[in-house]
């Protein structure tokens, strides 16, 4: 193996994705790696592909059927599932979409303001507040759960979307602040100086100079917010009791509550629909996601 060490194939290309064979790579080694990766990938994708295929199989054929290509097609699972619960899934999907869109707007608004303050402005107590912000990033949410519930109950916010939305407009998600701070710090400080010389106050500098440059960080924030809010189960479970307000995850769980043993096909069909937006956003925004976890993960 070590004879390949001086192989002339060693190239240094910093291009992230189209990486060429690195040090010590032999043809057989490459082949083995591809086989191993494909096997692992197959194992990981299999449950999802099985879900997709089961969503169009007739109920009787779903179980014990390992085949991914349905022998018999039953697309009515989708129409049955759509109307299987108390309300149409259209209601649950629009509830989820409302919450997701407002959460994204809230996070972008409040976290970018806070991030600009931390990253580019100097004021008394900045270091202390920044440390406090990092501290809340580590703080497990369950400690706040009960007093927050009591507070929201006293405000009359139970069974409304306020408990799910208002915190997002108040920059309570330190992770996104941190992500944006990291990004804003990487912008050259001369930008602010130039803007100031041109007569911009801090708000104008923020709005016209910094914000347009932060689009990648905003895209990352938007995608992360989308995925986590779309998946969120605990908050809606706690605060929403009226089925008319249910989000998609809460609705999906009702398939089990009703114990309809014949509902597998429709349940799988609705599961596929609930996962589709995440997968879509993932494919569209993979670049931002990978960058996002790499930057916040590393520093």
């Amino acid at each position: 193996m070590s004879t390949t060490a001086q192989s002339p194939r060693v190239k240094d290309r910093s291009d992230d994705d189209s990486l060429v064979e690195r040090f010590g790579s032999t043809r057989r080694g490459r082949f083995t790696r591809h086989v191993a990766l494909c096997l692992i990938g197959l194992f990981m994708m299999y449950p999802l592909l099985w879900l997709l295929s089961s969503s169009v199989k007739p109920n009787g054929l779903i179980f014990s059927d390992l085949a991914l290509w349905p022998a018999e097609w039953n697309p009515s699972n989708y129409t049955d599932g759509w109307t299987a619960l108390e309300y149409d899934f259209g209601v649950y999907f629009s509830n989820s979409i409302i919450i997701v869109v407002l959460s994204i707007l809230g996070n972008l608004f409040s976290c970018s303001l806070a991030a600009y303050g931390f990253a580019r402005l100097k004021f008394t107590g900045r270091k202390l507040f920044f440390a406090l912000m990092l501290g809340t990033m580590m703080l497990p949410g369950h400690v706040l759960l009960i007093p927050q519930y009591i507070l929201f109950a006293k405000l009359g916010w139970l069974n409304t979307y306020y408990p799910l939305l208002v915190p997002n407009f108040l920059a309570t998600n330190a992770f996104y602040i941190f992500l944006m701070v990291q990004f804003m710090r990487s912008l050259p400080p001369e930008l602010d100086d130039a803007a100031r010389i041109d007569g911009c106050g801090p708000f104008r500098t923020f709005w016209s100079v910094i914000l347009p440059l932060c689009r990648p960080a905003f895209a990352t924030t938007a995608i992360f917010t989308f995925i986590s809010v779309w998946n969120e189960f605990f908050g809606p479970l706690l605060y929403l009791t009226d089925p008319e307000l249910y989000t998609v995850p809460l609705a999906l769980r009702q398939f089990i509550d009703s114990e309809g043993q014949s509902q597998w096909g429709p349940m799988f069909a609705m599961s596929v629909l609930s996962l589709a937006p995440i997968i879509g956003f993932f494919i569209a925004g993979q670049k931002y996601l990978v960058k996002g976890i790499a930057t916040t993960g590393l520093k």
Partner: protein
Amino acid sequence: MTTSTEAAVMPEAAARPARSPRGPRRPHGRAHKDRAGYLFLLPWFIGMLFTVVPFFASLYLAFTDYDLLSSPEWIGLQNFADMFDDPVLLKSLKVTFIYTFVSVPLSLAAALGVAMILNRGIKALPVYRAVFYLPSLLGASVAVVLLWRYVFGLDGIVNAFLGWFGMDAIAWTSDPDFALTTLIILHIWTFGSPMVIFLAGLRQIPVMYYEAAAVDGASKWRRFRSITLPLLSPIIFFNLIQSIIASFQTFTQGFVMNNGGGGPANSTLFYNLYLYQQGFNQFNMGYASAMAWTLLVIIAAFTALTFFTAKYWVNYDN
């Protein structure tokens, strides 16, 4: 798709001209500087009230008996004393510990292993990375936990697969000995997000270190132990802390897997699930707050322990 998302995020800013129509405005003085900073942080300050006040309120409630209807009654350390005598609580603690200390090392090992294979320079890297990363975005969704119930069902595909090798079907989800295992497997299935972080870290290690070591005759294992592990140790450390904290707070998986009950025989009753039952099914808000603070102390202790041991195994100089 990407561009339309970006455009939707901030259409106004892109459309605005960069120059101020007004004349130069140059305020001086420290007070003004402070004011701008505080104005930017205003939403965050209000948000901190939603964090700081509940933080201390839950500490207070931990020493009270409170059912949400009558006012809290101070009972001192009674809640904490009760916890030691609560077999269900001890069981939930045990479930959470087993889950954390089995699934975190296994998923981090899987993440590191696959990241190292990917880092060797492979064609179609973005495709592989996407395939391995995607499950970590779906692992906490209700749809996937529901799917897991049926994949591991008595006549599910896992048993059908085992049947090929002549093994008997296992009652994965209804046998207390196996129910937690299915959730540990689900956790390992989501190794993609630490993998992406590892991969970014591996990219930082210069290839010439490996070349030099190979010239000196170092074996593969030796190169892994003496180059990869030390240089990657800060990232391993970061992933370890993140995973432990997240895993102690598992909720959805236990809730959905067994209809909110944590069954069979409390074998998937995660600590936070029991906390939820105490707080919001039985309305023992004081007891639930005491549980929350106990978990906070446990998490803080493990984090501190990891930090303390860090100086022996985490390498910070370059």
